[in-house]
């Protein structure tokens, strides 16, 4: 830690700040220099950890896929197939239709989000302190200026990106299954409908408003649910980390509880994705 005084709030603040990168007129700039770079700021830690974990997921599953046999599977293959079957069963139960995308999408979301959430169980100070140490010794930075947020799902950008991807797919599936006309009709002719033509036109604005809110609420709820749960959990880990020796039992209890949250949130995100896409591709409104 830096020589200047570290208050509890600055400690927490430090933990909740991403490592930023942006390009300025003077070339690449980092962290505090990016305070007013606006949209074109990159959260390097979120990107690195999430992409690293995503690659880890793909590597594990790809190596299982390469070695997969139809004969007697090994323990590793059994484990991987257990996850694949779990996701596959959920998709089959919820999404009635043929799609080569939904199942791998659900698998990617489930495992990727789970791995990212799992980072929450690493004691909050380990990796940031290590990063601070590396920054101080290798780059001569003040360790308090080195930021490292290791749980990508506590970054709204991460969860919003996932939700946005699902949102695009929802619209895409709607248009693919019902046509553009069908999609527009769905947005404008429900939930209020009448046989009267003039009445129908009169009702369009209300329907459009309600349906648009309903549609947009889905990605918002997806993104904010995951972000909120993980952010809150992370915050509590940070607070527990600040209470001295008492943190040991507290951390254990919260971590044990958090194991549930981690899996559950990954599962919920996956399940809702399947449900939303299933709703988007079915006609019964």
């Amino acid at each position: 830690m830096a020589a200047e005084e570290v208050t509890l709030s600055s400690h927490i603040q430090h933990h909740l700040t991403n490592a930023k990168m942006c390009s300025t007129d003077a070339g690449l700039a980092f962290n505090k220099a990016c305070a007013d770079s606006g949209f074109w700021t990159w959260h390097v830690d979120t990107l690195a950890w999430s992409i690293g974990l995503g690659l880890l997921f793909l590597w594990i599953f790809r190596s299982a896929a390469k070695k997969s046999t139809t004969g007697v599977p090994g323990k590793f293959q059994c484990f991987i197939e257990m996850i694949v079957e779990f996701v596959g069963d959920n998709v089959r139960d919820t999404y009635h239709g043929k799609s080569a995308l939904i199942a791998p999408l659900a698998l990617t979301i489930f495992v990727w989000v789970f791995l990212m959430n799992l980072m929450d169980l690493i004691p909050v100070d380990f990796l940031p302190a290590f990063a601070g140490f590396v920054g101080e010794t290798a780059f001569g930075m003040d360790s308090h200026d080195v930021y490292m947020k290791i749980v990508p799902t506590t970054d709204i950008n991460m969860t919003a990106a996932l939700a946005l991807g699902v949102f695009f797919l929802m619209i895409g599936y709607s248009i693919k299954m019902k046509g553009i006309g069908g999609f527009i009709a769905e947005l404008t002719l429900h939930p209020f409908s009448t046989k009267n033509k003039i009445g129908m036109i009169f009702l369009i604005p209300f329907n459009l408003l309600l349906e648009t809110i309903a549609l947009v609420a889905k990605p918002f709820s997806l993104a904010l649910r995951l972000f909120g749960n993980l952010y809150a959990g992370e915050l509590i880990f940070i607070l527990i980390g600040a209470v001295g020796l008492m943190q040991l039992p507290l951390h254990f209890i919260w971590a044990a509880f958090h194991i549930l949250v981690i899996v559950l949130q990954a599962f919920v995100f996956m399940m809702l994705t399947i449900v939303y896409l299933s709703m988007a591709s079915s006609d019964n409104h």
Partner: protein
Amino acid sequence: MNLNATLLGELIAFVVFVLFCMKYVWPPLNGAIEARQKKIEDGLAASDEAEKELERVRKEAAVELNEAKSQAAEIIEQAKKRAALIVDEETTRGQQEREKIIAQGHSEIDSERNRVKEELRTQVATLAVVGAEKILEREINQDAHSDIVDKLVAEL
């Protein structure tokens, strides 16, 4: 909120990961699972089939075994009868043989006895004549008394 370009980066990463998963991860894994399920299903069906076949063959074998047993019993019965028959036949034949041999022996003995008798008779006749000759030396004319001696020999 703190939305920034990270969102775009993550969105691109998300798309790439999903596409990769869709192309290189899901199909082989799911394919392997489904192929194995099919294999197990086929194997179970085949084992059911084999079990039925086994049951059928077992019944068939039991029937055949019973048949074979009765056949064997029959054959043994026949063999016993035949053996008894052969024993009877042989006994009869043996008896006949014995009788024949005994009869042959009897006749042989008879003929031998007759031959010996004849020989003895001639020898005794000769001895008698020689004895008579010795006793009577001169008195008896061989030519004149040979008929008496012959008669004597015949009476022996």
